[in-house]
């Protein structure tokens, strides 16, 4: 971000602006409560083509095709959804060298109330690390634009996927209300 620009106020505004700066136009998601303001803003901005897939690995397939056709895309999901995509990563994205941009709303830690989420959470980084898929955990808003911008550029330049794990420290996470 240039110094004379006004910094956007929220994490989701920063992500939207950074996607736009990097010409990432296709957004395919499986819904998540924490990501709701981001998804709503993406739908409202006609720069982006934004829609839901029925399953996270389907979303990975769609943005893979889009990349090969010359269009940059990102997928949004929550931690539990990550559990559906290791095969798509290991047999499509990684061997084909696709710069998939994967945003995960981190569940399962820092106040999780659902044991299932807490267990899937434990598998996520080991899977990414075993596949040598770049993954960055973002906890601070003042590092968000730099991290996302540079990581998108690296993904494209090196033809490699990147996973952005957005911590509850950044987004506020989801808390037990019942």
């Amino acid at each position, binding site marked *: 971000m240039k110094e004379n620009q006004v910094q956007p106020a929220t994490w989701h505004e920063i992500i939207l602006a950074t996607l736009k700066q990097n010409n990432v136009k296709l957004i395919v998601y499986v819904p998540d409560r924490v990501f709701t303001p981001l998804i709503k803003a993406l739908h409202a901005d006609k720069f982006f083509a934004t829609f839901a897939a029925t*399953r996270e690995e389907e979303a*990975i397939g769609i943005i893979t095709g889009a990349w090969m*056709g010359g269009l940059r895309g990102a997928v949004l999901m929550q931690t539990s959804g990550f559990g559906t995509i290791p095969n798509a990563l290991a047999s499509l994205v990684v061997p084909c060298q696709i710069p998939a941009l994967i945003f995960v709303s981190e569940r399962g830690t820092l106040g999780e109330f659902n044991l299932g989420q807490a267990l899937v959470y434990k598998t996520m980084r080991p899977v990414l690390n075993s596949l040598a898929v770049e993954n960055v955990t973002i906890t601070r808003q003042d590092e968000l634009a730099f991290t996302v911008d540079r990581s998108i550029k690296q993904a494209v330049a090196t033809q490699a996927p990147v996973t952005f794990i957005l911590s509850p420290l950044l987004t506020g996470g989801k808390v037990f209300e019942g």
Partner: protein
Amino acid sequence: MTNAKSSGSTRAHNAKIMNRFELTKRLVGQLKHEEAVIGGIGNANFDLWASGQRPQNFYMLGSMGLAIPIAFGVAIAQPHRHVFALEGDGSLLMQLGCLATVGERAPKNLTIVVWDNGIYQITGSQPTANPAADLVAIARGAGIANSAWTADETDFDRLVTTALKGGGPNLIAVRIDDKPAVATTDRDPVQIRERFMRGLGVKAASA
């Protein structure tokens, strides 16, 4: 294949059982404008390879079920190019939700071809959930109105010709025999992806 369980069946009970390689050649023979073709895992892929290695072909080596999502992504990126997904019945049953996504987004330039032999041929010919599942009825129910079973080779040619005029999404379902594919692909994912991107004009051919 014969015992349709509901009155909503779309099956043509006299539909001819055809051969995947022969029909793949007929499909490719109609492609005059560098249309993209995504081959699903297994024999769909292998017979596409055997039909001639066009630069606009992508051979999916893993990720069972994702041929249609990949083709859909290409169709979004290049709305003026027609895109085909060739998928087996077993692979489609693994990722049925993608039909609803395609039905909702309604890409005009996407055609899905389903090779239905009722078996997971490449893993030992175990039966799929067909014939209980009528994939054309499922596709129509998911919003892909232009979905049809194919009566014979001439009907297949006609359905492909119609699909190429736009007005998609289309789904063409074909009952096929259990003959194995006539060749196998090379298995070099980077080379396949790179060639495909050059074939689509995304990367310069000489770069």
